[in-house]
């Protein structure tokens, strides 16, 4: 039995922005003044978010997802490892997915190899290790020159894998991170090493690098079923070219979900948080209005060829997720799934069936969503959506990917 793996993703947004934020501030990233941070009101905020994640683990989610951002209101985890470490003490079975550590932001990759090894060891081997190169905001926050970032990224990953699988001390000659004595203590718990996930936004170069190393691919762009299917087909083809074979657990996707008792109640309860997320958190990121630092020519990490392809296949000023004008507009984009259990079940099943992707990474908390609502939504999902998805997907995957039968069920997502 290899059912779809369901992960609970918490971004940990800053929820106390003033109601006139959108008029007064250009962006939620990099330069959004931290005088807006309220030390009194935030007392207990992280704990609220951590407790939501812990409850998700108790509800049977397969794992908890965290990620890294700096100097922004979208995600308050400059070190997701800090939160993962906190979760080791509150959970027992859930995977801890850090997606991912931003490698070019470190003096050298030893630090990440060491921290991930600690978390894996403390958690008894529950870490899924994500690595990411970082986007535009991170380049500004840490003044990282982007043209060099990708080369440094893959050098970092290859060195980290050596630290986890080869005995030290050994020398790493560089070029970017030359080190004479590489010899980490501790090693990670998992043998040979924690599962590695790499996020990407459809670039064939990234998929190829992932396939070469036997890693798993996480599609970070929020897409609907058909686009996810296309991505899967492309990745499957690249895997085959590398002598490997696709199965649903080689890939993951990001979803945003709110489940209410009914479609109407779901919309009513989700709206405030969703709009806060779209208009504030995405300002400067996935929103046309306000500077968009996510991509852009200013600190280009993409090759000239990729940038030309982007220009040729996109429209200047095209609306993004955060530009949705009303609820209908938002629904038509199909990026955020809000509804009663039946609606959510069918939409997610449609995605799974079309895309044959086995890891769903789901955002349940939006912007300033109230604790009780975020918890209720996750609970309804766990009780009324997840069982059907698991059952149907296990059948589907077994039928379409008979080789899965040879894999141990305990670690379907390996």
């Amino acid at each position: 039995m290899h059912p779809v793996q369901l992960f609970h993703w918490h971004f940990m947004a800053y929820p106390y922005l003033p109601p006139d934020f959108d008029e007064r501030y250009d962006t939620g990233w990099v330069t959004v003044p931290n005088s807006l941070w309220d030390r009194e009101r935030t007392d207990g905020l992280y704990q609220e978010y951590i407790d939501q994640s812990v409850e998700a683990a108790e509800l049977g989610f397969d794992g908890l997802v965290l990620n890294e951002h700096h100097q922004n209101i979208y995600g308050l985890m400059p070190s997701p490892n800090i939160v993962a470490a906190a979760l080791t003490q509150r959970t027992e079975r859930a995977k801890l997915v850090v997606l991912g550590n931003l490698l070019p932001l470190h003096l050298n990759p030893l630090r990440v190899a060491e921290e991930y090894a600690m978390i894996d060891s403390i958690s008894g081997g529950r870490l899924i290790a994500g690595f990411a190169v970082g986007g535009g905001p991170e380049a500004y926050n840490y003044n990282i020159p982007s043209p060099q970032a990708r080369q440094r990224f893959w050098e970092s990953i290859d060195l980290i894998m050596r630290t986890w699988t080869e005995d030290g001390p050994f020398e790493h000659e560089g070029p970017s991170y030359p080190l004479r004595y590489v010899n980490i203590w501790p090693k990670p718990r998992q043998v040979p090493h924690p599962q590695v996930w790499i996020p990407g936004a459809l670039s064939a170069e990234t998929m190829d690098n992932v396939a070469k190393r036997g890693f798993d691919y996480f599609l970070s762009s929020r897409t609907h079923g058909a686009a996810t299917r296309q991505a899967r087909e492309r990745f499957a083809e690249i895997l085959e070219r590398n002598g490997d074979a696709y199965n649903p657990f080689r890939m993951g996707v990001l979803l945003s979900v709110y489940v209410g008792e009914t479609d109407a109640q779901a919309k009513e309860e989700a709206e405030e948080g969703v709009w806060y997320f779209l208009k504030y958190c995405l300002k400067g990121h996935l929103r046309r209005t306000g500077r968009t630092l996510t991509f852009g020519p200013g600190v280009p990490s993409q090759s000239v060829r990729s940038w030309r392809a982007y220009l040729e296949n996109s429209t200047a000023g095209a609306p993004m997720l955060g530009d949705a004008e009303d609820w209908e507009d938002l629904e038509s984009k199909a990026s955020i799934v809000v509804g009663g259990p039946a609606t959510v079940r069918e939409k997610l099943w449609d995605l799974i069936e079309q895309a044959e992707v086995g890891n769903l990474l789901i955002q349940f908390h939006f912007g300033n969503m109230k604790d009780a609502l975020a918890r209720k939504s996750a609970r309804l999902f766990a009780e009324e959506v997840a069982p059907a998805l698991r059952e149907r997907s296990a059948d589907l995957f077994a039928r379409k990917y008979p080789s899965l039968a040879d894999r141990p069920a305990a670690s379907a997502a390996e």
Partner: protein
Amino acid sequence: MSGRAVALPRGRTVAVAEAGEGPVIVYLHGIADIHGASFGWLPFHEALVERFALIAPAHPGCAESSEDEAIETVDDLVFHYLELFDALGLGTLKLAGSCIGGWIAAEIAVRHPERVERLALIGPTGLFVPGAPIADVFWETHPADGVSFAGLRALLFGDGESGIAREMFPDLRGDIDREVLRYKLFRFASRIGFSPPYLHDRRLAGRLGRFRAPALAIQGADDRLVPRRHGEVYAEGFGDARLEVVEGAGHSAFAERPGAVAALVADFLAAP
């Protein structure tokens, strides 16, 4: 104008634009410039061509010059240009540069003063001046609302809504080839100039005194990218230099007041 590809070691090529006859000037480009935002000469260059043999290489990765992953600092770039000068058979030369090209020209001059007869810099970046940082041009290349380059124009020109400014950096998505040309320039600039922020070499100011041949710094009176103090520090730091401030122009003075700036540069470089 003619263009050619000059071969350098390690399989690299440099796209070089050439025109005119007379004493040789090597001109290193900036952003609102040939190889940066323009495929060809601007009126400023055409004015120089009347009196000089003008040679304008495209920086590594810009225009048709090959990108070079080995370049990480401006020091690497100095070696690149020494190799190019050798390949072009230039022993000593008159050197000019604008914006980031001015920075590179200054680095060449303080390291290899014996090769540079005279040095002209227009709105040069490159210096660290405490309390007077070079503005963040990288940030401004993100179009507002996905379409407007008003912020970029305002940094690069005295009047960001002038004809020349809007012609070089139009709103909406312009011609893709030109967008790519510009992307290449910023990719190159961020390679050597994103860290430390921005476009400077902390050591350069202390080294200016090594260049003792005549130098001229030119700055637009309304330069919002490079504070005026930078032009002054250049002029004070070189052994024999002066600063000319051009009214009615911003950072891209050579594009905004081509006649006046070309006359300053030409008169200065023409001297023996």
